[in-house]
């Protein structure tokens, strides 16, 4: 036996209590892991390297207002711009308004969309087939799998923003690093279906020649249209996504307060367990000291116990959290907010470290008291 083994034996001395504590801590840490992952996905990820080279150009006021298609060639002329493609959010309904049937539909230009979205891959023959069919569309392969679509299938989408419906044929499937839940169709469909929109598009996607030139390109484009009656707002794809998240409300505050509540709850649970188990062992502490264990050793023994229990709970929680994140990322209720989000090792490590810290903090007072306790009193303790 070693002292470490002694700690381990003690940690599971009262098996039921240790397991209940472990479960309680792991459920809390599961939440913490999920919240940290959402935080990371929203605020800390840099996206793919291609994403860092992309900009979104939209109407300064809102996505709901349109830009003239004529802007496209003017944007192309800006130094640093490699490719430009127009995209229009159709916002229609597939089948019904249930969240699981929700996905994005964009009217766009088949000739250039995959030159801007370079991290999307589509077989050349499928792309050619789409270019030839004005009523054709290409779909995210993941989305197709979810709905059981095959190439050649018809896709009927009811317009809600626009007063007409789309009757599309699937001509191809593209793959992306993370699921996009997106269908692209030819924007001429919109021009013909709703003549008032002819000449107008929702926004532009731009591929810059390097990530470094993104800020200048954005500035140059906005400057170009500043005094027109449709001014633009250009920003990196990442900034655009953050705007989107900011619209959800005070997400940061929400996540932080939940994390705070969770950590505090874990602290209470762990402290309660340690207090109970240390109190029960008053006599044993006195015995250890009679055998010659110093205060420091006793302190270390108890804190080691709390830390190993809490850290184990953290590990279990982090593992369970990765399963939950997997489920949430695919859940229709979340809309497009968490698509493709997964847990990474540093997040799990942080969860375990947080748990271990909670173990230290929660045990320090009872363990300190135990280590300071009078041996004579301890030996006289009954119970």
């Amino acid at each position, binding site marked *: *036996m070693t002292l470490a083994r*002694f700690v381990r034996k003690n940690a599971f001395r009262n098996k039921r209590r240790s397991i209940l504590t472990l479960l309680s801590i792991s459920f809390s840490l599961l939440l913490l892991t999920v919240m940290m992952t959402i935080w990371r996905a929203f605020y800390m990820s840099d996206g793919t390297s291609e994403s860092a080279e992309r900009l979104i150009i939209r109407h300064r006021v809102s996505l709901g207002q349109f830009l003239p298609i004529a802007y496209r060639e003017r944007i192309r002329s800006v130094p640093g711009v490699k490719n430009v493609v127009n995209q229009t959010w159709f916002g229609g309904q597939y089948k019904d308004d249930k969240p699981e049937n929700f996905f994005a539909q964009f009217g766009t230009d088949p000739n250039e969309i995959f030159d801007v979205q370079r991290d999307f891959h589509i077989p050349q023959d499928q792309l050619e087939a789409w270019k030839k069919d004005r009523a054709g569309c290409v779909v995210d392969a993941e989305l197709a799998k979810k709905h059981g679509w095959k190439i050649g299938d018809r896709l009927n989408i009811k317009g809600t923003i626009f007063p007409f419906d789309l009757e599309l044929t699937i001509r191809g499937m593209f793959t992306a690093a993370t699921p996009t839940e997106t269908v692209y169709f030819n924007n001429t469909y919109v021009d013909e279906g709703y003549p008032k929109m002819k000449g107008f598009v929702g926004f532009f996607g731009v591929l810059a020649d390097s990530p470094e030139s993104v800020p200048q390109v954005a500035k140059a484009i906005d400057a170009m249209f500043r005094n027109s009656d449709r001014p633009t707002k250009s920003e990196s794809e990442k900034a655009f996504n953050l705007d989107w998240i900011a619209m959800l409300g005070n997400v940061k505050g929400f996540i932080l307060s939940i994390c705070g509540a969770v950590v505090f709850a874990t602290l209470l649970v762990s402290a309660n367990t340690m207090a109970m188990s240390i109190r029960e062992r008053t006599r044993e502490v006195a015995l*250890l000291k*009679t*055998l*010659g*264990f*110093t205060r420091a050793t006793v302190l270390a023994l108890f804190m080691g116990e709390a830390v190993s229990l809490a850290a184990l709970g953290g590990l279990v929680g982090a593992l369970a959290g990765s399963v939950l994140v997997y489920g949430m990322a695919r859940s229709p209720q979340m809309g497009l907010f968490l698509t493709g989000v997964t847990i990474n090792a540093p997040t799990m490590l942080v969860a375990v470290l947080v748990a271990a810290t909670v173990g230290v903090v929660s045990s320090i007072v009872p363990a300190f008291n135990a280590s300071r306790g009078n*041996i004579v009193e301890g030996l006289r303790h009954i119970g």
Partner: protein
Amino acid sequence: MSTAMALNTATETKVVQARNVSKVFQRDAFQVKALDDVSLEIATAEFLALMGPSGSGKTTLLNMIAAIDRPSSGELLVLGQNVFRLSDGQSARWRNQHIGYVFQTFNLIPVLTAFENVELPLLLTKLSARERRDHVMTALKLVGLEERVHHLPKQLSGGQEQRVAIARAIVSDPTVLLADEPTGDLDGRSATEILEILKRLNQDYHKTIVMVTHDPHAASYAHLTRHLEKGMLLPA
């Protein structure tokens, strides 16, 4: 001859030297005088039985010797050391090396096997796992429990538990063995077994033993019996 010189020469043969030791416990408004001006010398390899009615201060005196409690007044040297000058950490280490303590209620750790319970004090030493194993087995053989090495305390009888406790007390080869009513919770036969072991430890291994007991039969195993009454040590 001066007193100081006398003390010095005595040090070599005396394990315990208590002079006018008193201990007062403060309990709320009450003061309890657990030890009242006790002076006592215990020689090396002595086997002393300490008797007296309940509450007479026997455990208190034992605790003083083990340096887990300190006198209110008076002077106490154990193995020539004024143990109360030691810091908390030092006295813990000192106890680990020099004192073995056997309790009436055994105080084994329920989640540890007999072997692990005995090994516990050795975890504080620098011994290798192999050396620890040898020491533990020697101690367990001495108390006749080599067959029960991997049993948990609850799988042992009371007498066997106490034998494990004795093995734990002697495993680090201390000079002094303190036993507080070691047979108090045991039946006659188990008690005799324990007393025989203590006697052997005293005779063959020259351990100094101080044993608190209520039982005259147990006291008969000792060389010497002293009586405490209301905190006062009666003349020998």
